[in-house]
C-alpha cells in the first residue's frame, strides 16, 4: 500500500511518498510519526534543511537506498544521527564530525513541490521554522 506523509513547515504543506524499497528505514520513519520539531538549514551539507528526532534513530541502519548526494525534493534519513533532511538543491550527507557520509533516500516530495522547497530554502536566511510530519491517511 502506498504510504504518504504530510509535512507542514511553517504555513506551507506538502505530501511525500515513502519508498517501499527502503523497507526497514521507511518503516522506522512511518512508525515514528508524528514527528514535530524545528527545521534548520544545514551548515555543512548544502541546500537542505534538517530536523532531529530520537524516534528515527538507528545506530546500525541497513543499506537501503543509500546516497551521499542530496537532490531536490528528496527526504533523507540519517538514522545514525536521528536526522531527517529535506533537499531543495545540491546537497551532501555531511557534518562537522563525520564529514562525508551517507543517508537513506527514504521518501520524495510529490505535491506542492516548488512552494514547499522554497520554504525550506528560506530557512537559511529567515532561521528555523516549526515542522510537523504526520501520516497522510485517507486524504
Amino acid at each position: 500500500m502506498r504510504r504518504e506523509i504530510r509535512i507542514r513547515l511553517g504555513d506551507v504543506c506538502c505530501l511525500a511518498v515513502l519508498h517501499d524499497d527502503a523497507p526497514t528505514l521507511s518503516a522506522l520513519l512511518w512508525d515514528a510519526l508524528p514527528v514535530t520539531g524545528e527545521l534548520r538549514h544545514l551548515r555543512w551539507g548544502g541546500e537542505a534543511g534538517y530536523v532531529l528526532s530520537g524516534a528515527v534513530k538507528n545506530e546500525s541502519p541497513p543499506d537501503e537506498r543509500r546516497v551521499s548526494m542530496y537532490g531536490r525534493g528528496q527526504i533523507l534519513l540519517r538514522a545514525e544521527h536521528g536526522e531527517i533532511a529535506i533537499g531543495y538543491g545540491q546537497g551532501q550527507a555531511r557534518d562537522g564530525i563525520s564529514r562525508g557520509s551517507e543517508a537513506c533516500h527514504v521518501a520524495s516530495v510529490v505535491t506542492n513541490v516548488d512552494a514547499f522547497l522554497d520554504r525550506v530554502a528560506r530557512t537559511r536566511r529567515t532561521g528555523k521554522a516549526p515542522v510537523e510530519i504526520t501520516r497522510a491517511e485517507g486524504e
Partner: protein
Amino acid sequence: MFLELTTGGVTGRAVLTDATAEPVSRLLAVLPLINAALVPSCWSGPACEIDLSGTGFELGEPGGLPLGCSLYTGMLMLRRDRKVLEISYGPAESRSATGVQYGFAIGRFDDDSRGLLATLATSHDVGELHGSLRAVDR
C-alpha cells in the same frame, strides 16, 4: 590596524595578518564602513558569509599570503575571488558545492570577541544577521 564587526549590538575586533593589514587598511580608510548581511554558511560549517559585491571593497590579491581553507574559530577568510568574506564562529572549513575552496586568512578575532562569535552562532537559529564592518587603529 584592526577590523571591527558589529552585529546585534555586539562588537568584536579582528587583528589583521601582516600581509593584508596594509592593503586592507588603505582600502578601508577611504571606505570607512561596510553595512552587509551576514548569511549563514551552508557548506563551510559554523561560519557566516558577507557578500562584498557592491560594497566598493576591491582588494588586489594579497601578496605573500598563502592560500588556505581551514577556518579556526574566529578567523576571517577572504575567498580567492575576493568577493566573499567568511567569518567562522567554530571550527570550519571553506567549502562550496564542489569541494574545498581556498582563500586568504586575513585576520582573526581576538579573545575579547567571544560575545560577537556567540552572536554569530545564533544565525543557525535566526538566519541572517546584519552587521557593519570598519577599520580601526586600535
